[in-house]
Protein backbone atom coordinates (compact mmCIF):
# COMPACT_ATOMS: atom_id res chain seq x y z
CA UNK A 1 0.00 0.00 0.00
CA UNK A 2 3.01 2.23 0.27
CA UNK A 3 2.64 3.35 -3.32
CA UNK A 4 -1.01 4.28 -3.11
CA UNK A 5 -0.38 6.21 0.07
CA UNK A 6 2.06 8.47 -1.63
CA UNK A 7 -0.27 8.97 -4.54
CA UNK A 8 -2.56 11.96 -4.46
CA UNK A 9 -5.27 10.15 -6.25
CA UNK A 10 -5.51 6.40 -6.85
CA UNK A 11 -4.91 6.59 -10.56
CA UNK A 12 -2.10 6.29 -13.07
CA UNK A 13 -1.32 8.56 -15.95
CA UNK A 14 -0.58 6.77 -19.24
CA UNK A 15 1.37 9.03 -21.53
CA UNK A 16 0.18 9.18 -25.10
CA UNK A 17 1.25 11.31 -28.01
CA UNK A 18 -1.06 14.24 -27.27
CA UNK A 19 -1.33 14.15 -23.51
CA UNK A 20 -2.37 11.18 -21.49
CA UNK A 21 -5.10 8.96 -20.17
CA UNK A 22 -5.86 8.59 -16.49
CA UNK A 23 -6.51 4.99 -15.60
CA UNK A 24 -7.86 3.87 -12.28
CA UNK A 25 -9.39 0.83 -10.72
CA UNK A 26 -12.92 1.21 -9.41
CA UNK A 27 -11.98 -0.55 -6.20
CA UNK A 28 -9.06 1.74 -5.56
CA UNK A 29 -11.21 4.75 -6.22
CA UNK A 30 -13.94 3.62 -3.86
CA UNK A 31 -11.53 2.62 -1.15
CA UNK A 32 -9.66 5.86 -1.51
CA UNK A 33 -12.86 7.83 -1.10
CA UNK A 34 -14.14 5.76 1.79
CA UNK A 35 -10.92 5.70 3.70
CA UNK A 36 -10.37 9.41 3.38
CA UNK A 37 -13.82 10.38 4.41
CA UNK A 38 -14.53 8.73 7.73
CA UNK A 39 -17.19 10.76 9.44
CA UNK A 40 -17.42 9.72 13.06
CA UNK A 41 -20.63 9.61 15.03
CA UNK A 42 -20.76 11.92 18.02
CA UNK A 43 -20.76 9.21 20.59
CA UNK A 44 -18.88 9.14 23.83
CA UNK A 45 -19.83 7.59 27.07
CA UNK A 46 -17.07 8.55 29.46
CA UNK A 47 -13.44 9.54 29.90
CA UNK A 48 -12.32 8.46 26.43
CA UNK A 49 -14.77 10.93 24.94
CA UNK A 50 -12.69 13.74 26.40
CA UNK A 51 -9.61 12.38 24.66
CA UNK A 52 -11.68 12.06 21.52
CA UNK A 53 -12.50 15.74 21.86
CA UNK A 54 -8.82 16.41 22.38
CA UNK A 55 -8.12 14.66 19.10
CA UNK A 56 -10.44 17.16 17.44
CA UNK A 57 -8.80 20.18 18.97
CA UNK A 58 -6.19 22.43 17.47
CA UNK A 59 -3.21 20.56 18.82
CA UNK A 60 -4.00 17.13 17.42
CA UNK A 61 -6.46 18.30 14.78
CA UNK A 62 -7.98 15.26 13.16
CA UNK A 63 -9.46 17.56 10.54
CA UNK A 64 -6.16 17.22 8.72
CA UNK A 65 -7.30 13.76 7.70
CA UNK A 66 -10.84 14.88 7.05
CA UNK A 67 -12.34 13.29 10.13
CA UNK A 68 -13.75 16.47 11.59
CA UNK A 69 -17.22 16.16 10.13
CA UNK A 70 -18.66 14.58 13.25
CA UNK A 71 -22.29 13.78 12.63
CA UNK A 72 -24.80 13.69 15.42
CA UNK A 73 -27.11 11.31 13.62
CA UNK A 74 -26.04 7.74 12.91
CA UNK A 75 -27.66 7.91 9.47
CA UNK A 76 -24.86 10.09 8.18
CA UNK A 77 -21.92 8.58 10.04
CA UNK A 78 -19.43 6.05 8.71
CA UNK A 79 -17.60 5.31 11.87
CA UNK A 80 -18.59 4.82 15.45
CA UNK A 81 -15.84 5.42 17.96
CA UNK A 82 -16.97 3.64 21.09
CA UNK A 83 -15.30 5.96 23.56
CA UNK A 84 -15.95 4.72 27.04
CA UNK A 85 -17.45 1.90 29.02
CA UNK A 86 -20.55 0.21 27.71
CA UNK A 87 -22.88 -1.04 30.41
CA UNK A 88 -25.75 -3.47 30.19
CA UNK A 89 -28.31 -0.71 29.91
CA UNK A 90 -26.40 1.00 27.12
CA UNK A 91 -25.65 -2.12 25.10
CA UNK A 92 -29.03 -2.32 23.32
CA UNK A 93 -28.79 1.38 22.52
CA UNK A 94 -25.34 0.91 21.04
CA UNK A 95 -26.57 -2.00 18.98
CA UNK A 96 -29.41 0.11 17.77
CA UNK A 97 -27.12 2.97 16.85
CA UNK A 98 -24.94 0.57 14.93
CA UNK A 99 -27.95 -0.81 13.11
CA UNK A 100 -29.10 2.67 12.23
CA UNK A 101 -25.86 3.44 10.46
CA UNK A 102 -25.86 2.80 6.73
CA UNK A 103 -23.27 0.50 5.20
CA UNK A 104 -20.29 0.58 4.96
CA UNK A 105 -19.76 1.19 8.65
CA UNK A 106 -16.77 0.80 10.89
CA UNK A 107 -16.19 0.56 14.60
CA UNK A 108 -13.24 1.65 16.67
CA UNK A 109 -13.14 0.39 20.24
CA UNK A 110 -11.38 3.11 22.16
CA UNK A 111 -9.92 2.36 25.53
CA UNK A 112 -9.57 -0.58 27.86
CA UNK A 113 -13.22 -0.56 28.88
CA UNK A 114 -14.40 -1.21 25.36
CA UNK A 115 -11.84 -3.91 24.78
CA UNK A 116 -12.55 -6.00 27.85
CA UNK A 117 -14.23 -3.96 30.52
CA UNK A 118 -10.82 -2.68 31.54
CA UNK A 119 -10.71 -1.37 35.09
CA UNK A 120 -14.28 -2.48 35.55
CA UNK A 121 -13.69 -6.11 34.67
CA UNK A 122 -13.74 -7.60 38.17
CA UNK A 123 -16.59 -7.49 40.63
CA UNK A 124 -18.91 -5.38 38.58
CA UNK A 125 -22.45 -6.35 37.80
CA UNK A 126 -23.36 -3.92 35.09
CA UNK A 127 -20.39 -3.57 32.73
CA UNK A 128 -20.27 -5.25 29.32
CA UNK A 129 -16.90 -6.99 29.22
CA UNK A 130 -15.83 -5.81 25.82
CA UNK A 131 -17.86 -3.99 23.24
CA UNK A 132 -17.27 -6.79 20.72
CA UNK A 133 -19.96 -8.71 22.54
CA UNK A 134 -22.40 -6.22 21.10
CA UNK A 135 -21.07 -4.98 17.77
CA UNK A 136 -18.19 -6.05 15.50
CA UNK A 137 -15.03 -4.04 16.01
CA UNK A 138 -12.50 -3.08 13.35
CA UNK A 139 -9.76 -1.46 15.37
CA UNK A 140 -8.97 -1.64 19.07
CA UNK A 141 -7.02 1.02 20.95
CA UNK A 142 -5.61 0.14 24.36
CA UNK A 143 -5.15 2.71 27.06
CA UNK A 144 -7.15 4.20 29.86
CA UNK A 145 -7.82 6.56 28.28
CA UNK A 146 -5.73 6.30 25.10
CA UNK A 147 -3.91 9.40 24.06
CA UNK A 148 -5.32 11.42 21.16
CA UNK A 149 -2.38 10.32 19.03
CA UNK A 150 -3.43 6.75 19.64
CA UNK A 151 -6.87 7.55 18.32
CA UNK A 152 -5.37 9.14 15.23
CA UNK A 153 -3.21 6.09 14.77
CA UNK A 154 -6.25 3.87 15.05
CA UNK A 155 -8.07 5.88 12.45
CA UNK A 156 -5.14 5.70 10.07
CA UNK A 157 -4.98 1.97 10.71
CA UNK A 158 -8.63 1.79 9.82
CA UNK A 159 -7.88 3.64 6.59
CA UNK A 160 -5.30 0.99 5.79
CA UNK A 161 -7.87 -1.68 6.45
CA UNK A 162 -10.42 -0.04 4.21
CA UNK A 163 -7.88 0.16 1.41
CA UNK A 164 -7.79 -3.62 1.33
CA UNK A 165 -11.50 -4.00 0.75
CA UNK A 166 -13.15 -4.85 -2.52
CA UNK A 167 -16.44 -3.45 -3.60
CA UNK A 168 -17.66 -6.79 -4.87
CA UNK A 169 -16.56 -9.95 -3.16
CA UNK A 170 -14.14 -10.63 -0.39
CA UNK A 171 -11.48 -8.47 1.14
CA UNK A 172 -8.00 -8.52 -0.31
CA UNK A 173 -6.08 -10.50 2.25
CA UNK A 174 -2.51 -11.70 2.14
CA UNK A 175 -3.58 -15.19 1.01
CA UNK A 176 -6.37 -14.15 -1.29
CA UNK A 177 -4.25 -11.85 -3.40
Amino acid at each position, binding site marked *: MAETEKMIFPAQLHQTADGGIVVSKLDDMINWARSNSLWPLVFGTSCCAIEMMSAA*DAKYDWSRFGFEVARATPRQADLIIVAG*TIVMKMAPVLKRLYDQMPDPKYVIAMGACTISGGPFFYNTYSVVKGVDHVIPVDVYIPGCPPRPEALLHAMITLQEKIKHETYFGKAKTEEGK
Partner: protein
Amino acid sequence: MSLLGEPELTEEGEFVINIGPQHPSTHGVLHLKVWLDGETIKKIQPHLGYIHRSIEKMSESLSYRNFIYATSRMDYLSAHINNQACALTVEKGLQIEAPPRAQAIRILMAELTRLSSHQLWWGCTGLDLGAVTPFFYAFRERELIMEIMEETCGARLTQNYSVPGGVMYDVHPNFQNRVKDVMKQVKSRFREYEEALTGNVIFEQRTKGVGYLSAEDAISFGCTGPTARASGVSCDIRKWFPYDGYDKLQFDEIIMTGGDSYTRYMVRMEEMKQSVAIIEQLIDNIPEGDFQAKTKMVIKLPKGEFYQRVETARGELGVYIVSDGAASPYRIKYRSPNFSNLSALSHMATGAKIGDLVAIMATIDLVIPDVDR
Protein backbone atom coordinates in the same frame (compact mmCIF):
# COMPACT_ATOMS: atom_id res chain seq x y z
CA MET B 1 -30.82 10.07 17.64
CA SER B 2 -33.52 9.00 19.94
CA LEU B 3 -33.54 5.67 21.58
CA LEU B 4 -36.98 5.06 20.22
CA GLY B 5 -37.35 6.22 16.67
CA GLU B 6 -41.06 5.73 16.42
CA PRO B 7 -43.44 8.24 17.98
CA GLU B 8 -44.73 7.12 21.30
CA LEU B 9 -48.41 6.97 21.79
CA THR B 10 -49.08 8.56 25.10
CA GLU B 11 -52.06 10.68 25.91
CA GLU B 12 -53.85 12.40 23.09
CA GLY B 13 -51.89 15.36 21.77
CA GLU B 14 -48.78 14.72 23.80
CA PHE B 15 -45.52 15.07 22.00
CA VAL B 16 -42.67 13.24 23.68
CA ILE B 17 -39.12 13.29 22.48
CA ASN B 18 -36.23 11.31 23.83
CA ILE B 19 -33.09 13.37 24.12
CA GLY B 20 -30.29 10.89 24.42
CA PRO B 21 -28.74 8.49 25.36
CA GLN B 22 -26.71 9.44 22.32
CA HIS B 23 -27.19 13.14 21.76
CA PRO B 24 -24.60 15.85 21.29
CA SER B 25 -25.82 18.09 24.08
CA THR B 26 -26.15 15.56 26.88
CA HIS B 27 -22.37 15.30 27.25
CA GLY B 28 -22.43 11.59 27.56
CA VAL B 29 -25.24 9.17 27.86
CA LEU B 30 -27.97 10.90 29.73
CA HIS B 31 -31.45 10.12 28.55
CA LEU B 32 -34.07 12.80 28.97
CA LYS B 33 -37.65 12.12 28.17
CA VAL B 34 -39.15 15.47 27.31
CA TRP B 35 -42.83 16.25 27.02
CA LEU B 36 -43.32 19.11 24.62
CA ASP B 37 -46.00 21.58 23.77
CA GLY B 38 -44.72 22.93 20.49
CA GLU B 39 -41.22 24.00 21.47
CA THR B 40 -42.05 24.52 25.14
CA ILE B 41 -41.07 21.89 27.63
CA LYS B 42 -43.93 20.66 29.77
CA LYS B 43 -42.11 18.01 31.74
CA ILE B 44 -38.71 16.36 31.85
CA GLN B 45 -37.94 12.94 33.15
CA PRO B 46 -34.25 12.05 33.39
CA HIS B 47 -33.38 8.41 32.89
CA LEU B 48 -29.98 7.56 34.27
CA GLY B 49 -27.80 4.52 34.41
CA TYR B 50 -26.49 4.33 30.88
CA ILE B 51 -23.00 4.51 32.30
CA HIS B 52 -23.65 2.97 35.71
CA ARG B 53 -20.41 1.05 36.19
CA SER B 54 -21.00 -0.27 39.71
CA ILE B 55 -18.00 1.54 41.15
CA GLU B 56 -19.45 1.37 44.66
CA LYS B 57 -19.87 -2.39 44.51
CA MET B 58 -16.46 -2.83 42.98
CA SER B 59 -14.79 -0.71 45.64
CA GLU B 60 -16.12 -3.04 48.34
CA SER B 61 -13.74 -5.70 47.14
CA LEU B 62 -10.70 -3.50 46.57
CA SER B 63 -8.07 -2.51 49.08
CA TYR B 64 -7.87 0.99 50.45
CA ARG B 65 -5.01 1.74 48.11
CA ASN B 66 -6.64 0.37 45.03
CA PHE B 67 -10.16 1.73 45.17
CA ILE B 68 -8.86 5.21 44.47
CA TYR B 69 -8.15 4.53 40.81
CA ALA B 70 -11.81 3.90 40.04
CA THR B 71 -12.72 7.36 41.23
CA SER B 72 -10.60 8.92 38.51
CA ARG B 73 -13.14 7.55 36.09
CA MET B 74 -16.11 8.95 37.96
CA ASP B 75 -15.83 12.64 37.37
CA TYR B 76 -12.99 12.38 34.93
CA LEU B 77 -12.71 16.13 34.57
CA SER B 78 -11.82 16.51 38.23
CA ALA B 79 -10.06 13.18 38.50
CA HIS B 80 -7.37 14.45 40.79
CA ILE B 81 -9.85 16.01 43.21
CA ASN B 82 -11.75 12.73 43.42
CA ASN B 83 -8.55 10.91 44.25
CA GLN B 84 -7.72 13.53 46.80
CA ALA B 85 -11.10 13.06 48.46
CA CYS B 86 -10.56 9.32 48.78
CA ALA B 87 -7.05 9.74 50.06
CA LEU B 88 -8.26 12.24 52.62
CA THR B 89 -10.98 9.89 53.80
CA VAL B 90 -8.52 7.08 54.30
CA GLU B 91 -6.17 9.48 56.07
CA LYS B 92 -9.01 10.52 58.32
CA GLY B 93 -9.59 6.88 59.17
CA LEU B 94 -5.90 6.31 59.84
CA GLN B 95 -5.72 9.60 61.73
CA ILE B 96 -2.67 10.76 59.85
CA GLU B 97 -2.10 13.86 57.84
CA ALA B 98 -0.21 14.27 54.63
CA PRO B 99 3.09 16.18 54.94
CA PRO B 100 2.94 19.89 54.06
CA ARG B 101 4.70 19.35 50.76
CA ALA B 102 2.18 16.73 49.69
CA GLN B 103 -0.68 19.00 50.69
CA ALA B 104 0.70 21.86 48.65
CA ILE B 105 1.21 19.63 45.63
CA ARG B 106 -2.30 18.29 46.00
CA ILE B 107 -3.79 21.76 46.08
CA LEU B 108 -1.78 22.84 43.07
CA MET B 109 -2.88 19.82 41.11
CA ALA B 110 -6.46 20.24 42.26
CA GLU B 111 -6.57 23.83 41.11
CA LEU B 112 -4.97 22.94 37.80
CA THR B 113 -7.62 20.28 37.42
CA ARG B 114 -10.36 22.75 38.24
CA LEU B 115 -8.95 25.21 35.76
CA SER B 116 -8.76 22.66 32.98
CA SER B 117 -12.22 21.40 33.79
CA HIS B 118 -13.68 24.89 33.61
CA GLN B 119 -11.87 25.50 30.35
CA LEU B 120 -13.39 22.42 28.85
CA TRP B 121 -16.77 23.48 30.19
CA TRP B 122 -16.37 26.90 28.62
CA GLY B 123 -15.60 25.40 25.25
CA CYS B 124 -18.48 22.97 25.45
CA THR B 125 -20.91 25.68 26.51
CA GLY B 126 -20.07 27.54 23.36
CA LEU B 127 -20.40 24.35 21.39
CA ASP B 128 -23.80 23.58 22.86
CA LEU B 129 -25.10 27.01 22.08
CA GLY B 130 -23.96 26.67 18.48
CA ALA B 131 -20.69 28.59 18.58
CA VAL B 132 -18.09 26.02 17.66
CA THR B 133 -15.01 28.19 17.80
CA PRO B 134 -14.66 28.71 21.60
CA PHE B 135 -14.13 24.97 21.94
CA PHE B 136 -10.85 25.19 20.09
CA TYR B 137 -9.66 28.21 22.02
CA ALA B 138 -10.48 26.52 25.30
CA PHE B 139 -8.63 23.38 24.34
CA ARG B 140 -5.56 25.34 23.36
CA GLU B 141 -4.95 26.28 27.00
CA ARG B 142 -6.30 23.04 28.34
CA GLU B 143 -3.67 21.12 26.43
CA LEU B 144 -0.96 23.14 28.18
CA ILE B 145 -2.33 22.04 31.54
CA MET B 146 -2.67 18.49 30.31
CA GLU B 147 1.03 18.55 29.51
CA ILE B 148 1.81 19.54 33.08
CA MET B 149 -0.39 16.71 34.31
CA GLU B 150 1.36 14.30 32.06
CA GLU B 151 4.78 15.41 33.20
CA THR B 152 3.81 15.19 36.85
CA CYS B 153 1.99 11.90 37.00
CA GLY B 154 2.20 10.25 33.62
CA ALA B 155 -1.45 10.49 32.72
CA ARG B 156 -3.34 13.22 31.00
CA LEU B 157 -6.77 12.63 32.37
CA THR B 158 -7.06 9.89 34.95
CA GLN B 159 -4.17 10.79 37.16
CA ASN B 160 -4.43 8.56 40.23
CA TYR B 161 -1.79 10.76 41.82
CA SER B 162 -3.07 11.10 45.36
CA VAL B 163 -2.48 8.13 47.59
CA PRO B 164 -3.27 7.68 51.27
CA GLY B 165 -0.62 9.73 53.05
CA GLY B 166 0.35 12.10 50.30
CA VAL B 167 1.07 11.92 46.62
CA MET B 168 2.55 9.03 44.71
CA TYR B 169 5.74 10.69 43.50
CA ASP B 170 7.39 14.01 43.92
CA VAL B 171 6.74 16.60 41.26
CA HIS B 172 8.96 16.95 38.25
CA PRO B 173 11.91 19.34 38.78
CA ASN B 174 10.56 21.43 35.98
CA PHE B 175 7.11 21.67 37.56
CA GLN B 176 7.33 25.15 39.06
CA ASN B 177 8.73 26.86 36.01
CA ARG B 178 6.29 25.18 33.77
CA VAL B 179 3.25 26.01 35.86
CA LYS B 180 4.30 29.64 36.13
CA ASP B 181 4.78 29.77 32.41
CA VAL B 182 1.38 28.27 31.70
CA MET B 183 -0.36 30.50 34.22
CA LYS B 184 1.05 33.53 32.48
CA GLN B 185 -0.43 32.33 29.22
CA VAL B 186 -3.75 31.33 30.72
CA LYS B 187 -4.15 34.71 32.37
CA SER B 188 -3.50 36.55 29.15
CA ARG B 189 -6.18 34.48 27.43
CA PHE B 190 -9.06 35.26 29.80
CA ARG B 191 -9.69 38.45 27.90
CA GLU B 192 -9.97 36.45 24.71
CA TYR B 193 -12.52 34.16 26.32
CA GLU B 194 -14.62 37.09 27.32
CA GLU B 195 -14.47 38.64 23.91
CA ALA B 196 -15.40 35.40 22.23
CA LEU B 197 -18.50 34.55 24.20
CA THR B 198 -19.31 36.62 27.27
CA GLY B 199 -20.18 39.87 25.56
CA ASN B 200 -21.97 38.33 22.63
CA VAL B 201 -25.54 39.58 22.27
CA ILE B 202 -26.89 36.25 21.14
CA PHE B 203 -25.12 34.47 23.97
CA GLU B 204 -26.58 36.84 26.53
CA GLN B 205 -30.03 36.41 25.07
CA ARG B 206 -29.69 32.67 25.17
CA THR B 207 -28.58 32.51 28.80
CA LYS B 208 -29.96 35.52 30.69
CA GLY B 209 -33.09 34.65 32.62
CA VAL B 210 -32.93 31.06 31.45
CA GLY B 211 -33.15 28.19 33.90
CA TYR B 212 -33.76 30.15 37.07
CA LEU B 213 -32.97 28.37 40.30
CA SER B 214 -33.78 30.07 43.59
CA ALA B 215 -31.53 29.80 46.62
CA GLU B 216 -34.11 27.77 48.56
CA ASP B 217 -34.53 25.31 45.72
CA ALA B 218 -30.81 25.06 45.24
CA ILE B 219 -30.36 24.03 48.87
CA SER B 220 -33.36 21.75 48.83
CA PHE B 221 -32.21 19.98 45.69
CA GLY B 222 -28.77 19.63 47.22
CA CYS B 223 -27.14 21.62 44.44
CA THR B 224 -23.55 22.53 45.08
CA GLY B 225 -20.65 24.08 43.30
CA PRO B 226 -21.05 26.90 40.79
CA THR B 227 -24.65 25.85 40.18
CA ALA B 228 -25.63 26.72 43.74
CA ARG B 229 -23.22 29.61 44.12
CA ALA B 230 -24.86 31.32 41.17
CA SER B 231 -28.09 31.22 43.16
CA GLY B 232 -26.48 32.96 46.09
CA VAL B 233 -25.84 29.89 48.21
CA SER B 234 -22.50 29.76 49.95
CA CYS B 235 -21.32 26.19 49.62
CA ASP B 236 -17.61 26.17 48.86
CA ILE B 237 -16.19 23.29 50.87
CA ARG B 238 -12.77 24.88 50.58
CA LYS B 239 -14.12 27.68 52.78
CA TRP B 240 -16.66 25.79 54.87
CA PHE B 241 -14.62 22.76 55.82
CA PRO B 242 -11.06 23.47 54.70
CA TYR B 243 -8.88 20.50 53.89
CA ASP B 244 -5.25 20.14 52.88
CA GLY B 245 -4.46 23.65 54.02
CA TYR B 246 -6.92 25.64 51.96
CA ASP B 247 -7.51 27.74 55.06
CA LYS B 248 -4.02 29.18 54.76
CA LEU B 249 -4.67 30.53 51.28
CA GLN B 250 -6.19 33.77 50.16
CA PHE B 251 -9.04 33.36 47.73
CA ASP B 252 -12.65 34.37 47.35
CA GLU B 253 -15.69 32.21 47.16
CA ILE B 254 -17.53 33.51 44.12
CA ILE B 255 -21.18 34.02 45.01
CA MET B 256 -23.63 35.69 42.66
CA THR B 257 -27.36 35.97 43.01
CA GLY B 258 -28.74 35.86 39.50
CA GLY B 259 -29.67 32.19 39.58
CA ASP B 260 -29.89 31.91 35.78
CA SER B 261 -27.64 30.31 33.21
CA TYR B 262 -25.73 33.50 32.61
CA THR B 263 -24.85 33.83 36.29
CA ARG B 264 -23.68 30.25 36.41
CA TYR B 265 -21.52 31.03 33.44
CA MET B 266 -20.08 34.13 35.14
CA VAL B 267 -19.40 32.25 38.38
CA ARG B 268 -17.31 29.72 36.54
CA MET B 269 -15.45 32.38 34.63
CA GLU B 270 -14.55 34.10 37.91
CA GLU B 271 -13.61 30.80 39.53
CA MET B 272 -11.01 30.23 36.87
CA LYS B 273 -9.36 33.47 37.93
CA GLN B 274 -9.49 32.41 41.57
CA SER B 275 -7.84 29.11 40.70
CA VAL B 276 -5.05 30.95 38.97
CA ALA B 277 -4.68 33.15 42.05
CA ILE B 278 -4.40 30.11 44.32
CA ILE B 279 -1.82 28.50 42.08
CA GLU B 280 0.24 31.68 41.95
CA GLN B 281 0.21 31.98 45.73
CA LEU B 282 1.38 28.48 46.22
CA ILE B 283 3.71 27.75 43.35
CA ASP B 284 6.69 29.55 44.86
CA ASN B 285 5.96 28.35 48.37
CA ILE B 286 5.92 24.58 48.06
CA PRO B 287 7.41 23.46 51.39
CA GLU B 288 10.38 21.15 51.34
CA GLY B 289 10.11 17.74 52.90
CA ASP B 290 8.48 14.41 52.30
CA PHE B 291 5.82 13.98 49.69
CA GLN B 292 4.27 11.00 51.41
CA ALA B 293 3.62 10.06 54.99
CA LYS B 294 4.59 6.59 56.09
CA THR B 295 1.73 4.17 55.87
CA LYS B 296 1.54 0.43 56.23
CA MET B 297 1.66 -1.69 53.13
CA VAL B 298 -1.82 -3.05 53.76
CA ILE B 299 -4.04 -0.34 55.09
CA LYS B 300 -6.75 -1.34 57.49
CA LEU B 301 -9.12 1.28 58.73
CA PRO B 302 -10.50 0.99 62.24
CA LYS B 303 -14.14 0.09 62.64
CA GLY B 304 -16.32 3.09 62.07
CA GLU B 305 -17.58 5.58 59.55
CA PHE B 306 -15.61 8.27 57.81
CA TYR B 307 -16.95 11.08 55.74
CA GLN B 308 -14.90 13.56 53.77
CA ARG B 309 -16.11 16.39 51.60
CA VAL B 310 -14.11 18.16 48.94
CA GLU B 311 -14.92 20.78 46.36
CA THR B 312 -14.60 19.42 42.85
CA ALA B 313 -15.04 21.54 39.77
CA ARG B 314 -18.74 20.78 39.91
CA GLY B 315 -19.50 20.96 43.59
CA GLU B 316 -19.37 18.97 46.73
CA LEU B 317 -18.08 15.44 46.50
CA GLY B 318 -18.60 13.37 49.61
CA VAL B 319 -16.83 10.09 50.22
CA TYR B 320 -18.51 8.00 52.88
CA ILE B 321 -16.60 4.93 53.96
CA VAL B 322 -18.04 2.41 56.36
CA SER B 323 -15.34 0.16 57.68
CA ASP B 324 -15.68 -3.09 59.59
CA GLY B 325 -11.98 -3.27 60.28
CA ALA B 326 -11.08 -5.30 57.20
CA ALA B 327 -8.60 -4.43 54.45
CA SER B 328 -11.33 -3.24 52.11
CA PRO B 329 -14.28 -0.97 52.79
CA TYR B 330 -17.52 -2.54 53.95
CA ARG B 331 -19.58 0.04 52.16
CA ILE B 332 -18.55 3.05 50.19
CA LYS B 333 -20.81 5.80 48.99
CA TYR B 334 -19.90 8.67 46.75
CA ARG B 335 -22.13 11.66 47.16
CA SER B 336 -21.56 13.05 43.73
CA PRO B 337 -22.24 16.71 42.94
CA ASN B 338 -23.68 16.05 39.52
CA PHE B 339 -26.27 13.63 40.83
CA SER B 340 -27.90 16.32 42.93
CA ASN B 341 -27.38 19.04 40.38
CA LEU B 342 -29.07 16.92 37.76
CA SER B 343 -32.10 16.37 39.96
CA ALA B 344 -32.78 20.11 39.75
CA LEU B 345 -32.76 20.02 35.95
CA SER B 346 -36.41 19.22 35.47
CA HIS B 347 -37.32 21.94 37.94
CA MET B 348 -35.21 24.48 36.08
CA ALA B 349 -36.14 23.57 32.54
CA THR B 350 -39.90 23.15 32.82
CA GLY B 351 -41.53 25.89 30.81
CA ALA B 352 -38.40 26.65 28.84
CA LYS B 353 -37.74 25.99 25.17
CA ILE B 354 -35.69 23.11 23.80
CA GLY B 355 -32.86 25.51 23.08
CA ASP B 356 -32.95 26.62 26.71
CA LEU B 357 -32.67 23.06 27.90
CA VAL B 358 -29.38 22.81 26.08
CA ALA B 359 -28.19 26.06 27.65
CA ILE B 360 -29.23 24.90 31.12
CA MET B 361 -27.52 21.55 30.76
CA ALA B 362 -24.41 23.27 29.51
CA THR B 363 -24.22 25.63 32.46
CA ILE B 364 -24.92 22.99 35.09
CA ASP B 365 -21.90 21.28 33.57
CA LEU B 366 -22.95 17.69 33.90
CA VAL B 367 -20.53 14.81 33.78
CA ILE B 368 -22.70 11.77 33.38
CA PRO B 369 -20.33 9.06 34.65
CA ASP B 370 -20.25 11.00 37.90
CA VAL B 371 -24.04 10.91 38.06
CA ASP B 372 -24.25 7.19 37.43
CA ARG B 373 -21.00 6.10 39.04
